[in-house]
């Protein structure tokens, strides 16, 4: 297992090097000039020339790349052109927001999705099964941002129940240690702050959870249905084993593999869904910041963030692959 993990990590290296080159080329292929983005409408040609000189954007591109890599090897991801903040610092600051949102969404999807899929498989063809299956289809085909708009309209504008933007009420003077706001509230015993952060999580995480939820329902249903057809399940049932023992020991365990795979894949995709959701809900996370950075042509942020996301994405995939081995010893990781 360890050797497998090390090999996979080693394989990541060429991918990351390639990605860093592509990213570097990409940000510079973006039309428009970071200097002008920085100076805005008042930009003068002299001002632009000066900014380009200060940031070294007028040097030959290969030289710029070498400098960038040299800094990277020293652990320096550069500073945001817009805010001047070191890229790594801002990522560390904003990433908990995205994780908090993503984990909540994924939890929602798993906690609701797996039982629903299981139930549907056990009652195939019945009304509730049909209902669950069609509902999950709708979840897959509804654009996230459309759903987000609907949620906002219904729960904020009409029912006046839930907040629509930010991660916490600015009126609450909450202490932040980890930048996971709910966790912070619990750690500092500021329970109202934790509760408020939780309430702020509801709409964005529901919007973000729909697609993974729908997919998890469908995969669980299919996997369970397949296992139920297996001979060993029939044998177990005919042997007179209690229903719940069969479910736990045989059905769930064997159906888990594709479900875990799916959950892992969805965890990675949540990073990308976060761009839309965070933008709609003014959620302070990496997705929103990354999207704004495109508009700002904030080269160091774009390069750094996408690189971090790729690393995290790869690590999630690795963990998922390793989880196979744990769940199903038959799968020899190769």
């Amino acid at each position, binding site marked *: 297992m360890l050797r497998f993990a090390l090999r996979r990590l080693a394989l990541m290296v060429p991918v990351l090097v390639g990605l860093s080159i592509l990213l570097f080329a990409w940000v510079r292929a973006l039309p428009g000039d970071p200097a002008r983005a920085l100076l805005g409408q008042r930009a003068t040609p002299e*001002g632009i020339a000066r900014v380009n000189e200060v940031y070294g954007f007028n040097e030959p591109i290969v030289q710029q790349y070498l400098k960038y890599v040299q800094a990277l090897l020293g652990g320096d991801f550069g500073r945001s052109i817009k805010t001047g903040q070191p890229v790594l610092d801002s990522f560390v600051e904003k990433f908990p927001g995205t994780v908090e949102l993503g984990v909540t969404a994924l939890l929602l999807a798993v906690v609701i999705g797996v039982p629903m899929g299981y139930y549907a498989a056990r009652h195939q063809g019945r009304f509730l099964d049909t209902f669950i299956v069609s509902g999950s289809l709708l979840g897959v085909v509804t654009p996230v941002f459309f759903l987000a708009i609907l949620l906002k309209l219904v729960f904020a504008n009409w029912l006046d129940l839930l907040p629509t933007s930010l991660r916490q009420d600015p009126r609450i003077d909450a202490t932040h240690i980890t930048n996971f706001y709910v966790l912070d509230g619990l750690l500092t015993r500021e329970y109202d702050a934790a509760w408020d952060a939780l309430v702020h999580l509801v709409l964005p995480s529901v919007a973000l959870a729909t697609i993974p939820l729908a997919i998890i329902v469908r995969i669980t249903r299919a996997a369970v249905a397949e296992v139920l057809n297996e001979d060993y399940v029939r044998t177990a049932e005919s042997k007179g084993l209690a229903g719940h023992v069969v479910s736990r020991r045989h059905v769930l365990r064997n159906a888990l593999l594709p479900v875990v795979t799916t959950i892992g894949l969805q965890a990675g995709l949540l990073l990308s869904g976060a761009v839309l959701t965070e933008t709609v809900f003014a959620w302070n996370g990496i997705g929103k910041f990354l999207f704004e950075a495109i508009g700002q042509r904030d080269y160091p942020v774009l390069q750094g963030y996408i690189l971090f996301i790729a690393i995290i994405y790869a690590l999630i995939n690795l963990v998922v692959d390793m989880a196979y081995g744990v769940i199903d010893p038959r799968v020899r990781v190769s």
Partner: protein
Amino acid sequence: MGLVGMTAGALLLAGCAESGRDGGEGGDEGGGTFVFAGAAEPELLDPAFASDGETFRVARQMFEGLVGTEPGTPDPAPLLAESWENTEDGLSYTFQLREGVKFHDGTDFNADAVCANFDRWYNFPEGVQSDDFAYYYSKLFRGFAEGPKAGDGIFESCEANGESEVTINLTEPFAGFIAALSLPALSMQSPSALEEYQDDAAANVNTTEYSTAHPTGTGPFQFDSWDRGNRVTLTRFDDYWGEPAKVDTVAVVAIADPKARATAVQNDEVDGADLIGPADIAPLEEAGMQVMPRDPFTVLYLGLNQKQKPLDDIEVRKAIAHAIDKEAVASASLPEGTELATQFMPQSVVGWNPDVTQYEYDPEKARQMLKDAGADGATIEFNYPTDVSRPYMPSPADTFNVLRSQLKEVGLKIKPVADVWSPDYLDKITGSPDHGMHLLGWTGDYNDSDNFVGVFFGTQTDEFGFDNPELFKKLQAARGVPTLEEQTPLYEEINADVMEFLPGVPLAHPAPSLAFGPDVEGYQQSPVNDEVWNTVSVG
């Protein structure tokens, strides 16, 4: 006439010792937190290095300049200076300072502090002289002690005459000097705090300790914390010389989407928000929220790039002007309170001319003029930005849409070209000749004519694509005149010339709107955004 009154006001205020900020309702118990949503985070907390509205919004709560503005107008008024006078030649200004003013760190505000600030600006190291930092100082005072602009500066010296009198000497007359001092970029900062926490020579002044955690001024609020990406928190400064703030705390948050800002106000997630979209105004009012338009100090225009045919033909430009129904443009795409424009500056600015040529809406005439010019059925590129709302242009796509149907009506073919505002659109319009007619505008920073027409037409630009040395010369001359009285006729003439030459069609002066929850009281809106929240109370 407004002009004379204004000019006189600006000078006569010298004798007026009243504070501009004393007009609160009173009687409120106060306390609580006032949460305000802007469109973006401040870039840093030291306003000397900023030029954007969001940074200034926060800075205005903490910092004050020698000069402020008369509430509700763009006109200069006493603030940290109680009065001032200047020599005949316009080269020397003497200020009488308000006494008993303290910085947030407990040090005294006095003549030495004023000179420390002026000397700091003048001695900015080369790294911060560029436009992304000391934009305003560099633009207004034109030079520094060292660096490439050494010797170009119009600042000569600052002399402290005792505790509360200070004289600023200039090397050239600068008629807009007093008005310029109302800019937050030129506000007074604590010399001792600067000494301790600020490093103007830092590799990046955006991230110095002072710029992120120790801004120290004389304003009614002092800095508490800045949770990046989340909020800036300020608390009441109890030793404030003027009317103490009614609320204990203010929090400024960023919500980029105008619709989301409106929803946040309605949902009581924030107490107030700026730049409310025109379409959100009526629903907010119906829901019992307060919507406050500012007096417009903006201009939105349709620029006509003369590098592109047939826009180089003055007859075609005039025909376009006749084809546009400004009334319809405003009602379809601009907020209530918008005024229609006859020239490239709002009425309250020096040199606004009531007698400029006006092009009344007459599609018939426009069609005929186009035919005569041989431009009937010509295809013209129309550039406009997407995904942006500016104070002068709340929903460009709507404005474009109305204009397009009006121009189609008179027989022009319109080729829409849309770009994302930053940086693509700005790049294309201001940095290349590759555009046709286009939407753009301006929000005045302070009451200065050059800040409008000078910015647009002062030199040959890619935006308008014309070379008119005579106009450039006139603007150059008007800028150098020492007093506002002498400037007025010059700018009036310039405005008349511009509207004959028609480098673009001024459309309107849109009124940027604020929205507040039902229990917010005492917010004084200002056309130049000089809004200080010490008078504000929340339910």
